């Protein structure tokens, strides 16, 4: 009986390779969703702004574009330093920690400077409810600031893990991707919102 039974043709299932570490892939997917969120903000802001003859609306304070340009440079430099830390991590590991720390300091400077700028704008009367100008400014720039704070915390954790010798490569990569996103989206926001 058994001899008459033909074996069911089975095809070997294709071997699946992971495209990368889960933390890196998850971070990339997260970044895609965040990009869409910022795109929605920018689109809504552009449509609202186009309805006004002058921007900022009459009676509303101007944003400190020149001072923020300096802050923008600090943030961009922070991204460059993290890239150098990435390179040093594999080629000149002794320097990686210094680059990481410098990147962390510059990122913190960016957020603190923004806090100072916000305090000044609030004193000048720009609030979430003062106008569309204030509402969009705090919504868009505030969302970015939240991301920056989260990324700085992640960078700090990465740095301390690095110093303690428990840093894993995939964790460092995922954090880098997050920080590059924070750095990369800022110039777009700066040109659209501040100028």
């Amino acid at each position: 009986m058994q001899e008459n039974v033909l074996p069911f043709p089975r095809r070997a299932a294709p071997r699946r390779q992971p495209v990368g570490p889960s933390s890196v892939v998850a971070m990339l997917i997260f970044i895609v969703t965040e990009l869409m969120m910022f795109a929605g903000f920018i689109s809504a802001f552009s449509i609202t702004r186009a309805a006004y003859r002058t921007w900022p609306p009459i009676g509303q304070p101007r944003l400190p574009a020149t001072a923020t340009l300096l802050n923008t440079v600090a943030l961009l430099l922070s991204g460059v330093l993290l890239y150098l830390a990435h390179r040093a991590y594999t080629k000149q590991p002794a320097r990686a920690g210094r680059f990481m720390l410098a990147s962390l300091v510059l990122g913190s400077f960016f957020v603190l400077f923004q806090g100072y700028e916000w305090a000044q704008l609030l004193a000048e009367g720009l609030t979430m409810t003062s106008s569309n100008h204030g509402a969009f400014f705090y919504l868009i720039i505030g969302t970015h600031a939240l991301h920056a704070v989260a990324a700085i915390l992640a960078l700090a954790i990465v740095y301390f893990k690095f110093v303690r010798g428990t840093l894993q490569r995939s964790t460092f990569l995922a954090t880098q991707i997050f920080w590059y996103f924070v750095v990369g989206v800022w110039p777009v926001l700066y040109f659209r919102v501040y100028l």
Partner: protein
Amino acid sequence: MKSLLSFAMTAFVLLGAPLVAHACPMCFSTGENDGAFIYGSIFLMVVPVLSLGGLGYWAYRRLKAIDEGVVRPDADADSSAEAPQNNGGNAVVLQMSQRR
């Protein structure tokens, strides 16, 4: 009978369709920011295509490189056995660099 009823219902809905849709921002546009609406729509259509396309392209290139042996599948993976020990600063980093 059934098809006649479907036709009648469709015709009723189409005839009764409002000329102004409340969910349509263009219907309430003052005309000054029509360009912003159009460019905003194009922008919102392009961003997901580019970002998801970029992610897919990266995955395709990466898998191709793995298949061709250019990149090891575990190139960026962690290994607890190879994780650096807590022996302080630069010595730890040097140990990690030897993994590659």
